């Protein structure tokens, strides 16, 4: 009883100082560079990968028709609006003829005038012919001179030439009239195909130059995706590969398609290969032209081989490898990585076998002398 107070004090001191000291040692050894590194392990498995390629594209129409006048002029009417479906041969609008009709009337009158001239020439020729015949008979009976007959023959040839010239003139003015006629017809803007109006660039009353687009049509059955693949990741890209098309507006809806064509010209600036992917079925409603799409191409499934996650692969001193764990000891094993899929799985050509334990994730960079602590999840990762 008497000695207790002193002991109690000592005990209390020990009760405070010992845990403090223990905590201190724990803190010193468990944090900072002396602490073991938390790692997540994975077992190397034999798996067959189905690698795929990923590209970004935009919806485009394969055939775009820009309808416009062949001659400069003013737009008179436009009969279609953006979004309307049109048929081949349908009149989309008309250019203002301005003075074209009057010019046709002028031309009609000219034709009539030339026809009258033709008749006159005909009559002249017939008269010259008759005169020539009569003078021939008169010469036989020697009632006229040879010189007279020669003069009449010359008259006949002149009349014949005049007739030919007038006939050709008639053909010319008729053709000119036809030119105006066809111009009159060409004022109609006519759809060459069944298509969809995607743009109406000008409104009636606007003067346009020859060749400027007034109405833009696309062929809805011809839409495709113009897709870009990074050159470094385009290995295995070829025609007819099945594709998954994901439109930006419908991220949950994947539409099937396939590669139609790989462009022979790659983009040298962006270092991309261009390809065209078509839909298996044209989506209804039609996706807007220019919409962003994500394309995933599925490559043929590979043979089984040891597979590791790409997060496990590190480059140390210029060598690719993984951290192999044997009997809780770490060592860096060089590997030869092969083909990878988009889920981050990488085939290992050389250096690992199925069943090997490797480090996938680690809290810090690892070294050969790192102490490790195997955990389910690296601390701090929110899942």
């Amino acid at each position, binding site marked *: 009883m008497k000695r207790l107070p002193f002991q109690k004090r000592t005990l209390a001191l020990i009760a405070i100082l010992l845990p403090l000291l223990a905590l201190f040692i724990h803190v010193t050894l468990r944090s*900072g560079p002396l602490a073991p590194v938390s790692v997540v392990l994975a077992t190397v498995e034999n798996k067959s990968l189905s690698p795929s390629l*990923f590209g970004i594209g935009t919806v485009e129409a394969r055939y775009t028709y820009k309808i416009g006048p062949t001659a400069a002029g003013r737009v008179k009417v436009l009969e279609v609006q953006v979004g309307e479906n049109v048929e081949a041969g349908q009149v989309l609008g008309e250019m203002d003829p301005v003075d074209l009709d009057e010019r046709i009337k002028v031309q009609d009158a000219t034709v009539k005038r030339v026809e009258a001239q033709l008749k006159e020439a005909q009559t002249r020729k017939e008269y010259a012919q008759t005169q020539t015949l009569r003078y021939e008979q008169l010469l036989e009976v020697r009632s006229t001179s040879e010189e007279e007959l020669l003069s009449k023959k010359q008259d006949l040839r002149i009349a014949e030439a005049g007739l030919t010239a007038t006939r050709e003139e008639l053909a010319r003015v008729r053709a000119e009239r036809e030119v105006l006629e066809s111009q009159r017809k060409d004022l109609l803007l006519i759809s060459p195909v069944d298509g969809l109006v995607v743009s109406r660039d000008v409104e009636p009353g606007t003067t346009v130059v020859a060749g400027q687009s007034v109405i833009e049509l696309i062929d809805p059955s011809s839409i495709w995706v113009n897709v870009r693949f*990074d050159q470094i*990741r385009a290995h295995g890209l070829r025609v007819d590969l099945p594709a998954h098309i994901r439109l930006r507006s419908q991220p949950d809806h994947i539409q099937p398609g396939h590669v139609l064509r790989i462009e022979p010209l790659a983009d040298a600036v962006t270092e991309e290969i261009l390809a065209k992917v078509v839909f298996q079925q044209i989506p209804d409603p039609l996706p807007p032209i220019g919409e962003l799409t994500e394309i995933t191409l599925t490559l043929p499934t590979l043979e089984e081989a040891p597979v590791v996650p790409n997060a496990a692969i*590190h480059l140390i001193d210029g060598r690719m490898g993984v951290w192999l764990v044997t009997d809780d000891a770490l060592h860096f094993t060089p590997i030869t990585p092969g083909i990878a899929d988009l889920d981050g799985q990488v085939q290992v050509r050389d250096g690992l076998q199925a069943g090997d334990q490797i480090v996938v994730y680690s809290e*810090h960079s690892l070294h050969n002398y790192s102490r490790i602590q195997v955990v389910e999840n690296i601390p701090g*990762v*929110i899942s």
Partner: protein
Amino acid sequence: MISLAGRDILHSWGKFVFTGMGLGLLIGITLSMAGIYRGMVDDAKVLLDNSGADLWVVQKDTLGPYAESSSIYDDIWRGIRGMPGVEEVANITYLTMQVFKGDHDVRAMVTGITPGEVGTPGWPLYLVAGRQITRSHYEAVADIATGFKLGDQIRIRRHHYTVTGLTRRMVSSNGDPMVFIPLKDAQEALFLKDNDAIWEQRRRSAGTPAFNRPGLPDLLDSFMASQSTNPFVNAVLVRVGAGHRPEEVAASIRRWKRLTVYTRAQMEEILVGKLIATSARQIFMFLVILSLVSSAIVAFIIYTLTLGKIREIAVLKLIGTKNRTIVGLIIQQSIALGMIGFVVGKISATLLMAPIFPKYVLLLPFDSVIGFFVVVVICILSSIIAIRAALSVDPAEAIGG
């Protein structure tokens, strides 16, 4: 000989332990301050380590890409790749910006990395979850400090990215967490404005007669297309092949490509010496002030404790205790207080303070050792006033006056 100091501490342990804990919290803050400085230096070094590069090729006469903005054409790497000694090159962009997830946003350094395979310079060195980027668009690897989870959809400028992997300690020299995205997306992000800005820009261009000419209907389209490309990157990272000295390779790139090239040592000098120099000085001032405050507190406590023992000290002197013994008593108590404070400080800095600081706090064992000796020295110096007081005690005071 028995330990007078030990007995005294044992006798009034409550006072000691609680004073020690108070002091400990102060020392904890001091250690954390040192840790923040170390953390800043480490942030800078981690940034360089993570880039995995031996050389940084940047715009001529800039300190880029971290300390100053630098932009070079994104096809320059081709020429550099051909230089002797260059093993691997990769374009990289860095842009600190807000990254959105739903309604909330995080400040992050968005890093555009060249697609390729693991080990390409600029790629995150190791992950803590998920996988590295495999698609060349719209995937992101984020640092856990952003608070993002695997599978999160995050928005950077106009595009959405899926978080496929998480890193740890991948930060900019400012301590902002890094978000890795494919280079092409990053180049766009560097340049792309928000949707409104794009519309306005288009309207402005369309309203400019020079670009919207009736006789040249396609000019406007061409002009707008030319406006939305960004053929620039911030730097080219170079890995030097075995057997080549980075300095030599750097010199040849400087000479033949007429670009500025930094080696790892130079980059560290820029980051540590220039970028964080002011903050470092600020923290150093804090350290000094905290040390002064700590020593003032220790001095005050020890002085008070000593004054409370003046009579005992007089008796001790009277019965022939040597000054050395009395000085020892005070210094030992002071050091004991410092030790308790140090232990509590180290624990509180590691367990309580370091995790709650928003910036990285790196507590190096070496700093702790230095800290320990500083604490001991401070305690010894702080006890000087108390020692003077104790030594000036007249043993005659013990004899009734």
